[in-house]
């Protein structure tokens, strides 16, 4: 039996406000293919008396934390956060999938969920001149993140980012091997203890180096620094300006500090990452960057912006197949991109990049469409 105190839980999570309208489930991308039904879950919890049994509710691990449910709810109930809190109950009992266990342990030991060595974190910088923020100081911390540090594809994005920011004359530095996982995924997997520990560790580093401004490649890192970190630990917090790199680039283009002289004469469609769009309302900045590139024709998919379809890479799903491993959402997404006639599927998130890339291969569509990060496109147009 895996019981939670349901009345207390519902109160803490604000679930009594629910009017059972079903907007959460109606828009949930996972409800299309698995048993996950946020409205039903809330209803059962509300009528459960004082104990709600989570036993057998494997669908809780299907949630990608895309936040569609929360963004649609007319009563500001947040089913996604309730699901994360339910996951915590599993984590507390140590009852998690072995992949999740490995990822969490790797975060704890190596500062990344990828089972890579801490001392290899800065390998991607080989042959590049990048300031160390600890030694030389800089206006901005470029927080690289785990996937762009270790994953060969992600590394290309990181290297592109350096070139683009240099071209715009941004004064930035990196932490190198001292950079740690932001632990956003640990939090989404329900491992709150680990998350809070990592917050403390990272904030210590930021404080020591007097970092007040940072930008990230991943919307997941961006979101957690911006929205989760301020809520953990002692208040008030040190002020910190957190930006996603597309916000930086959009601002630099607007101020004419970044100019694209090269052409990128291709049809491009843009996939909104959930943690940039639905979580943080950043829809225009990435598009502004793309539109400022000469020759680039931006076409929209039907499901764009607020309606963007999740790639199924968030909420720890990079390490979990889910209860229905059939057609991944990323494959549907690539099909939607193909329907527009675009030659490039652009995005601005290392997880999306990886899931969409995988989907293109799965669909044998490499000849028709390429998945590129906005930074990779930008560097080609400098």
């Amino acid at each position, binding site marked *: 039996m895996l019981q939670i105190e349901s009345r207390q839980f519902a109160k803490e999570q604000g679930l009594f406000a629910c009017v059972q309208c079903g907007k959460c489930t109606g828009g949930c991308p996972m409800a299309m293919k698995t048993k996950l039904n946020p*409205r039903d879950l809330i209803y059962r919890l509300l009528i459960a008396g004082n104990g709600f049994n989570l036993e057998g509710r494997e669908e809780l691990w299907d949630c990608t934390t895309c936040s569609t449910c929360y963004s*649609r709810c007319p009563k500001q109930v947040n089913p996604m956060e309730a699901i994360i809190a339910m996951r915590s109950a599993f984590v507390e009992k140590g009852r998690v999938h072995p992949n999740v266990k490995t990822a969490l342990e790797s975060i704890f030991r190596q500062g990344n969920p990828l089972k890579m060595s801490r001392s290899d974190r800065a390998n991607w910088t080989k042959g590049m001149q990048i300031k160390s923020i600890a030694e030389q100081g800089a206006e901005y911390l470029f927080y690289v993140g785990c996937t762009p540090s270790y994953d060969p594809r992600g590394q290309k994005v990181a290297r592109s980012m350096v070139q683009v920011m240099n071209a715009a004359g941004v004064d930035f530095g990196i932490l190198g091997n001292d950079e740690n996982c932001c632990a956003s995924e640990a939090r989404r997997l329900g491992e709150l203890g680990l998350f809070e520990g990592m917050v403390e560790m990272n904030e210590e580093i930021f404080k020591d180096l007097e970092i007040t401004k940072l930008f990230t490649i991943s919307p997941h890192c961006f979101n957690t620094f911006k929205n989760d970190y301020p809520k953990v630990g002692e208040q008030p917090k040190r002020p910190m300006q957190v930006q996603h790199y597309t916000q930086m680039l959009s601002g630099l283009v607007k101020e004419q500090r970044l100019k694209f002289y090269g052409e990128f004469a291709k049809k491009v469609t843009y996939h909104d990452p959930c943690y940039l*769009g639905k979580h943080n309302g950043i829809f225009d900045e990435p598009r502004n960057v793309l539109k400022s590139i000469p020759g680039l024709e931006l076409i929209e998919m039907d499901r764009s912006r607020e*309606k963007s379809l999740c790639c199924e890479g968030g909420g720890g799903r990079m390490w979990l197949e889910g209860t229905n491993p059939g057609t991944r959402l990323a494959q549907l997404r690539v099909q939607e991109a193909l329907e527009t006639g675009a030659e490039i599927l652009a995005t601005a998130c290392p997880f999306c990049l990886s899931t969409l890339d995988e989907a293109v291969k799965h669909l044998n569509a490499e000849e028709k469409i390429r998945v590129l990060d906005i930074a990779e496109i930008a560097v080609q147009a400098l």
Partner: protein
Amino acid sequence: MNAPDMRGNGRSHAALVVGAGIAGIQAALDIADAGFKVYLVEKSPSIGGRMSQLDKTFPTLDCSSCILTPKMADVPRNPNINLLTCTQVKEVQGQAGGFHITLEREPRYVDESACTGCGLCADACPVSVPNTFNAGLDSHKAIYRVFPQAVPNAFKIDKRESPCKNTCPAHIPVQGYVALIAQGKFREAYQRVLEAGVPFVGTLGRVCYHPCESECKRADWDEAVSICALKRFAYDAGTDHTKPEPAPVKYAERVAVIGAGPAGLTTAYNLTLRGYKVTVFDALPAPGGMLAAGIPEYRLPRTVLSDEIEYITALGVELKMSTPIGRDGGPTLDDLRKEYQAVFMAIGAHGSSRLGVPGEDMPGVYQAVPFLRHLNIGHEAAIGKKVAVIGGGNSAIDAARCALRLGAEVQLVYRRSRTEMPAAAWEVASAEEEGVKLTFLSAPTKVLEKDGRVTGIECIRMELGEPDSSGRRRPVPIPGSEYVLDVDTVIAAIGQNVESTGMGVETKWDRLVVDPLTLETSVKGVFAGGDAVIGPASVVEAVGAGIQAAESIHRYLRGMDLREGRTQTHPNAKDIKVVPASPVKRAPRERMQELSAVDRINGFKEVELGLTQEQAIAEAQRCLECAVCSECMQCVDACQRGAIQHDDKARHMEVDVETVIVATGFDVFDPHRKPEFGYGQYPQIITSLEFERLASASGPTAGKILINGQMPKKVVFIQCVGSRDKSISLGRDDDTLHPYCSRVCCMAVAKQAHLAHDRLPGAAITVFYMDVRAFGKGFEEFYDRVRKEGITYRRGNPSEIIRRGYKVVVRAEDTLIGEQVEVEADLVVLAVGMQPRADMEILSRTLNLSRSEDGFFLESHPKLRTVESSVPGIYLAGCCQGPKDIPDTVAHAKAAASAAMIMLNRSLATSIAGEGADYAAN
């Protein structure tokens, strides 16, 4: 009912009712019938409000118009009601029992009392705009009546600002002649420009640098409208070259104009039309100023220029050519002032800046202005075979292209780079195409000679340094980089100046000093404008100055204020928002045919050949009609009652009333704020208000429910769009939508589902709902009836709408089966909620009224005093206090009228008794 007139002690006892929807109409009629005077103020051009937009009313299915229009008709018939449309409350002073109210009446541009509503004006009007009454589903003309049963039955003109006219230095009504060309009315288009005070239609259509096109809003879609080419077309196709009769001389005062260029002749033209006798003096033998002496014939054929000048002289303008003023033995300014009561100085900028290098005064070295003048007027210019032109402005390009046509090899030398060239880019491109060689970053250092003849010019290479005062990068010589160009002729075109010495008015550097608004000089009665004031500029700026000078001189001679009502500031083009009447189809601008480069350089034939008739019409139709009314004046011609007043102005009006009823109604929720529903993205998705107009027999489809011209077979209604909704709003300023229930949508949807069932036989109709609130008399019974007709009610509030092929798919959870469902539809109706009027904040400040958290006006007590506002003597009626259906609105209005009448009666009683007023708080 006969309306008795109740007045005590001759003092009128009156109420002000703000808003003339069903609530305001009902309240006004009740108070008027009780014998009190009512000012019924309505912002829009007609009374009727939201109810006039509805098709049927629930639950009885009465025709909304049929029960409303008799009430509307009662309003103007009631002698106690003073109906003021297009009017808003500006200021309120005083208190209950004695309010002093300032009203502002917006111009209607149509005399309400003269207009019979015949509609001939709208038939003649070339401009269409989205019809907001029909929820934007069709369009009406710029002169329009809101709907056929409008009260008052009068038309109105929708006038806004257009960037082209605002940007034009001469404020030519661009949209007017463009709209006329689009209609094939070429003669009227030509006349329209002439009437705007611009006699140089064909000339400007050829040589204008058209700043209007840079601001044209069409460029936000594809490319700017080719305005200049259209003006040329208006002349080419619109004039029959007949000359007008002399204008009658109305005034004794005579006016002298110095300079027969575009500024001077424009002033003369306008003053002559106003009834003055004007004489124009010029030092040159032929009229036209720089138009004749400066602009080469291949850009402006002399037949066009002389035709336009002859038009001006035919009106009665007297030309005295070869008569310099203040020099060479000609009369002085003082001489002129003795004979003429006003003088306009438009002497242009015919002087030349010197190169300042050795050898510049030798034969074979020319200045561009005299070179072009000799060529243009005398047709003789002895130049050699190899010509260097120095400079990068328009005169340099003109000189270079002329020299080329005289058979020379031409090299243009400019000290900066191409991007800094002041010449128009398209002129530079043409010159290059014709074979002019361009050398950048070079400046002459000396002219070389042998035996008194030019043999070459020594130049030095330059590089660009820091920006100078003009914002362009300053060229700096590179020491030791001198080189020689082998030429036998040099034409200097590095600047023009004003030959202003001896003119007798104040100058700064060489330019005449004037008041920028009135163009008055330091000497009384003497005005100046054009190049002489602003330095070498453009024809259209000169024409603009000419028009302003004529206005100033007329005011001066008639003893009027020179400044009143004149301004130099216009709304920034960036601030002008355009809402095209129909979706803009991308179409590039039409381009003129041009002579080939080879044909060009063999003579001085005109290079640009003009638009064809088909091209001109197509190009004119690209105009987005930013100002809505194009001021083409076709309505004036069409109206047989002389009711059109294009110069109508806003007016203020003051009234004294005892009490005020606010009945300003509601706005509907804008579903763009729920982007997941794809409103505006998919044509199949409409609002409930749009559905009413589609279903209405007097609507745009005469009551047929059509989407993309087809009768839908699968219809979905979605309730609670924007109501009962506190969702977070991503990336937007507003945090919440509307937490409250809009109260009417459940029943409105039931009624609309019934209408859809009735009008779309066999259609599958689904209503998605959260709860159904059928709380009124007969409501539950109606809901029962609708379900029994076969309408499917599914419990669940849809989450999003996506596209699948040609259909849209509504994605929801059917919460009764607990499954995610997708319902295909070819029509989706969003039951949009009610929200406070957008201008509620302004009205609440004007009247000092409190608002509740939801934004509607706050009543004094939620149960017992729902018509009393937070201000004694001001009452609330209808949806401005909160969402209501029609029966509740009418009841609320009658209650407000009753409260107001108590106030009026008390005041009447005290004034009859002759006692001091005691207007206790309501």
